[in-house]
């Protein structure tokens, strides 16, 4: 997949950093403003998709390779599961319990700040990581299938 002209390449190399930063903002403030893990993750993935459209697929694959993105995906999911299972340390009825808020920080006047609401920002970060990596992998893999095809040729790449 080829890239685009020099104007597009220059502008997109500045803009993609801003998009990435905006995605991180949406994830981190997910407990205060609309957005959260999924929406922020989609924005993170779209910054890499912009990179792929402007510079060509091989360049995007060099910056974030497929095995690394796959591992990031798994790390995100395992982080989410770890946050949920940590509640089990506080008794058998504690799966997904917001233990940071309910046990340690309840009653102190810390609401509506960035660092508040217990385990919710941690879950948001995990989900944002996972969704960003997954969507990027999906679009990368779909664009790989656009090679020159011959009808009836069987290829060796299993999905």
């Amino acid at each position, binding site marked *: 997949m080829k890239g685009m002209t020099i104007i597009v390449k220059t502008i997109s190399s500045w803009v993609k950093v801003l998009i990435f930063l905006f995605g991180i903002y949406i994830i981190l403030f997910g407990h205060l403003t609309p957005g959260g893990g999924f929406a922020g993750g989609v924005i993170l993935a779209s910054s890499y998709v912009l990179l792929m459209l402007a510079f060509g697929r091989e360049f995007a694959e060099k910056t974030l390779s497929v095995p690394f993105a796959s591992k990031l995906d798994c790390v995100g999911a395992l982080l989410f599961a770890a946050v949920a299972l940590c509640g089990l340390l506080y008794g058998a009825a504690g799966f997904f319990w917001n233990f940071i808020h309910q046990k340690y920080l309840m009653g102190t006047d810390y609401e509506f700040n960035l660092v508040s609401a217990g385990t919710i920002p941690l879950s948001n970060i995990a989900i944002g990581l996972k969704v960003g990596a997954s969507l990027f992998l999906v679009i990368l893999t779909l664009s790989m299938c656009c090679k020159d095809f011959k*009808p009836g040729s069987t290829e060796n790449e299993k999905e």
Partner: protein
Amino acid sequence: MLYALCFLLFTIGLYCAVTKKNMVKIVIGIMVMEYAVNLFLIMLGYRMGGVAPIIGRSDLESGLGGFVSKSVDPLPQALVLTAIVISLGSLALMISICVRTYEKYGTFDITQIRRLKG
């Protein structure tokens, strides 16, 4: 009244998914059906003249009763977020199968992709 329009959109999507012969058009029909159901789900929670369900510090200090009587229902919004994520995953899987089928058969027409019969 608006619910009837939503149902009309749903039946348009169903008609498209059932009668079209191109695989991509069938996928688009299914996506239109999904959008119609998500729209229906959000419209269930609407309240005339309501505000967005985000609590600010002033709402918390003045008691939550006034906020609850003014805001729209936030539960369908959470349900629709989940449903959108699920339909995204399903769409990705359907499109990748369409791409793979095109590479093998050379056509998107489902009347020609009929090796399994009987």
